[in-house]
């Protein structure tokens, strides 16, 4: 019996067993029996909206999609990537693994796709998660905890006027539960020794509330086995006959020496193991909150580089990052119902631990090339919301940032002190043959940023409201920039709503782009994007709503590499690109019956450059759609069914495996949830069947994806041009089971 059939049989058996034990009560969606609550308990139920200034989605001058904690629970989401797959606009190169030493590679409405996706801002409770030095969008895979999340707001379109840099394509804002009381836990088990435990605890001591959330996620990963690899980038390869460069046991440099592994098969696949931990602890009073957030990710590098040039299945083929934040938030009403003051103070550290790295197959094959860095930031932000009258509010704010940045320190052989900006065994020196274990000191850069912003929101009439604002940012590394925004919202009645939005956002040049010794350019200016958007929404009372969005974006001064013969590498960074994206997206959410809800979203997008007319965007599908249905036939049983449809995708010219087009795919996920397990309201269990029909699919090779497997020859050409594979294979059918309790 094949593995798939065995898995399906197990699922059917489990389903039958549990379904027969479920009690049939009323067809209600709620997990809580509100009738059993006392009057005081009913009165204490909190109804939460979250935005920078507590607005409903209809009132927000942005294209916002909200993912609630109920949606996260019902759909069995394990990480942010799974959530984004069900939203319109996201095209993935790598998904929840395979990012390599960078967190992720994907595009949002055609923008992004660079290493670490620096054009997307990620926040947790208003605290920026993007890497301090490299701007990478962090915290999107299993190092992020969803167990203590109240809701996630995904804003598409520019958000710099309120939130600053990196909010170019959009913002992912994770909002955690506040003042949670109780003790919840969740155990998750899956294939390949996947095990996860999450705990959430909160209580009061007098008027002080404290809350602790913990997560550990472990998995051996499937090692890429069973994933589609039609081009043999990760399979059926042989070790090269020679090592093009090496240091012998005595530390002597040698070239073109016989490889002891010559002729042997390179193990198929790639290390995509996971070892992730997260902690969030906060103490709150009515006005103040102190907290500590910590996350650590030690994962296999996955499919981000080809398997014939790198020892991709090795245990030490890993990325190891961590992030730490300590913060204090204060919120005070200065004048009742009129003036509120919010103040945030934080200290952050982003570390890349020195066991991040890999070994080549064709050179220095016993010595690990490793990367480490440590950057820190101190920030202070103040914001005042002033309600001028019933219809007008002014928001003013200021932010100060001090960053201490280091580049990635690259070493060969010896494991380094990850917090240092030095190495005892510089790769840059070793690769030239000048010797192993040579010290190199990397420079530390101190950068500061100041920003002030102001926003005015008001109403011309009951039906027409407006917002206008701007942010002025000044960075010691990149100069100054203005990012305005404006919006109009027109409501015909309770049902129709029309929004017209304009915004500018920026991404400051990263430390690497500015200061890399071979390619850096200190005269780089920030990239800027202008986005125009029209949104038309209609509510069908008691049934649902539909929303249409037309958007047009122009990314100016995009930073990219250009040829420069004066540089050692023959190239340097410059502000060169202009690109344009336009598209239409639609979202439909309906609740035709009390126990049944459905959603459908679709996006069409195109792009052009200054040289080429409108057409498909590289790395994206012209058409993408997602459909989902949630059905709760009885109170204690829930079925969630979701389909992702991705049309065929355009590949860049540099990607030699595909002839301009890569196939699309359709993926189906089903999640079954049983509450009140064994008639115990504290217990529930869930079975998740991801990629139910075992669809073969992959992400398009990140960036150039230019490796040509046909050029690899273990005897004659062990190091062909390019190291990024043409695609990143994704898993087939996967099963996860979880057990949750709440006290």
């Amino acid at each position, binding site marked *: 019996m094949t593995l798939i059939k065995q898995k399906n049989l197990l699922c059917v058996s489990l389903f039958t067993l549990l379904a027969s034990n479920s009690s049939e009560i009323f067809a*209600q969606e*709620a997990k809580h029996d509100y*009738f059993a609550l006392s*009057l005081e308990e009913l009165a204490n139920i909190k*109804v939460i909206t979250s935005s920078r200034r507590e607005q409903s989605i209809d009132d927000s001058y942005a294209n916002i999609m909200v993912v609630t904690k109920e949606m996260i629970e019902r759909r069995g989401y394990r990480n942010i990537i799974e959530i984004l797959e069900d939203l319109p606009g996201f095209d993935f190169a790598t998904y929840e693994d395979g990012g390599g030493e960078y967190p992720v590679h994907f595009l949002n409405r055609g923008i992004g796709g660079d290493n670490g996706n620096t054009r997307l801002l990620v926040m947790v409770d208003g605290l920026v998660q993007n890497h301090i030095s490299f701007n990478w969008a962090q915290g999107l895979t299993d190092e992020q905890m969803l167990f203590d999340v109240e809701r996630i707001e995904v804003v598409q379109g520019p958000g710099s006027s309120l939130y600053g840099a990196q909010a170019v394509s959009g913002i992912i804002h994770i909002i955690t539960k506040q003042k949670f009381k109780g003790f919840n836990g969740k155990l998750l088990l899956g294939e390949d020794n996947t095990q996860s435990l999450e705990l959430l605890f909160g209580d009061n001591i007098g008027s002080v509330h404290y809350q602790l959330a913990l997560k550990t996620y472990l998995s051996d990963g499937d090692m890429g086995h069973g994933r589609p690899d039609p081009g043999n980038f990760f399979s059926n390869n042989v070790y090269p006959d020679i090592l093009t460069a090496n240091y012998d046991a005595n530390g002597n440099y040698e070239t073109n020496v016989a490889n002891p592994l010559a002729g042997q098969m390179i193990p198929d696949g790639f290390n995509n193991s996971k070892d992730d931990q997260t902690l969030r602890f906060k103490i709150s009073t009515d006005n103040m909150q102190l907290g500590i957030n910590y996350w650590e990710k030690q994962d296999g590098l996955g499919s981000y580089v080809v398997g014939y040039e790198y020892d991709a299945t090795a245990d030490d083929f890993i990325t190891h990052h961590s992030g730490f934040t300590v913060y204090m938030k204060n919120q005070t009403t200065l004048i009742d119902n009129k003036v509120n003051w919010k103040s945030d103070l934080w200290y952050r550290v982003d570390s890349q631990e020195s066991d991040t790295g890999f070994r080549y197959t064709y050179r220095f094959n016993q010595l690990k090339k490793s990367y480490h860095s440590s950057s820190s930031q101190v920030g202070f932000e103040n914001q005042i919301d002033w309600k001028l009258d019933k219809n007008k509010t002014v928001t003013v704010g200021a932010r100060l940032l001090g960053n201490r940045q280091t580049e990635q320190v690259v070493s060969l052989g010896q494991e380094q002190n990850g917090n240092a900006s030095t190495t005892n065994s510089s790769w840059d020196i070793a690769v030239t043959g000048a010797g192993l274990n040579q010290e190199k000191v990397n420079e530390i850069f101190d950068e500061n940023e100041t920003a002030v912003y102001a926003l005015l929101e008001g109403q011309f009439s009951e039906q027409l409201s407006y917002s206008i604002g701007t942010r002025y940012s000044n960075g010691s590394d990149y100069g100054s920039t203005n990012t305005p925004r404006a919006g109009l919202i027109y409501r015909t009645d309770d049902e129709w709503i029309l929004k017209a939005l304009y915004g500018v956002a920026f991404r400051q040049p990263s430390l690497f782009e500015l200061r890399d010794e071979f390619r850096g350019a200190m005269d780089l200016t920030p990239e800027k994007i202008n986005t125009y958007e029209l949104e038309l929404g209609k509510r069908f009372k008691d049934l649902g709503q539909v929303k249409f969005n037309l958007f047009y974006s122009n990314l100016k001064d995009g930073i990219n590499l250009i040829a420069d013969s004066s540089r050692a590498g023959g190239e340097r960074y410059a502000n060169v690109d202009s690109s344009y994206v336009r598209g239409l997206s639609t979202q439909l959410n309906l609740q035709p019956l009390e126990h049944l809800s459905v959603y459908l979203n679709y996006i069409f997008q195109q792009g052009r450059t200054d040289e080429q007319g409108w057409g498909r965007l590289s790395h994206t599908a012209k058409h993408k759609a997602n459909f989902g249905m949630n059905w709760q036939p009885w109170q204690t049983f829930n079925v969630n069914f979701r389909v992702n449809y991705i049309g065929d995708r355009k590949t860049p010219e540099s990607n030699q495996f595909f002839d301009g087009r890569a196939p699309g795919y359709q993926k189906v996920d089903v999640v079954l949830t049983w509450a009140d397990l064994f008639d115990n309201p504290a217990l529930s269990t869930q079975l998740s069947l991801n990629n139910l029909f075992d669809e073969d699919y992959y992400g398009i090779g990140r960036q150039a994806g230019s490796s040509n497997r046909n050029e690899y020859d273990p005897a004659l050409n062990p190091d062909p041009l390019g190291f990024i594979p043409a695609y990143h294979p994704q898993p087939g059918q996967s099963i996860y089971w979880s057990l949750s309790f709440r006290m």
Partner: protein
Amino acid sequence: MTGVNLISRSLSLVTFSFLFFISNSLVAQSEITVDSENQIEINRIKTAYLYNFLKFIDLPPNQSTAETNSFAVCVLGKDPFGLALDAMSGRKAKGLIVFSKRVTTIAEARACNILYISESESERLDLILKSFEQSAILTVSDIRQFSQKGGIIGFVKNAERIGLEINLNNARKANIKISGLLLEIAEVIE
């Protein structure tokens, strides 16, 4: 990674968490939060309120109640609660069985003990409230300024809660006594 690793980490996590748990000795019930966009969940909470009102009001003797030995909780107009309202039927309050029903006319509504007036009836609200002014029927609604317009209990949106606004004067006219426990959690207007 092996199972041994998970076991040891899990034990650490659980032990750490239980230290917090034990150090406070009281296990607080989980705080319930609801998304403001989740109208279905909010309506379920409101039906729970309707049911609870029966426990905290004194109604004068009613012929219908005496005959049926039950309380009637009714919705006049377009029903926003759906199956949540049906979930109330069969429960008990003050020893009597509660049943829920949907009514479309004022005449039908006269047999109710609690009458939720739907927003669909906004335009004829004055007529409805005048009809029940001195009837021993607890009128409840989400219609804006309901308790100022002659109703007894209005659901209102507070900053983070589902609020209640109770008009004691209107309650007295209807000969309904409201318990201090209910008044404590509400905003009271005379």
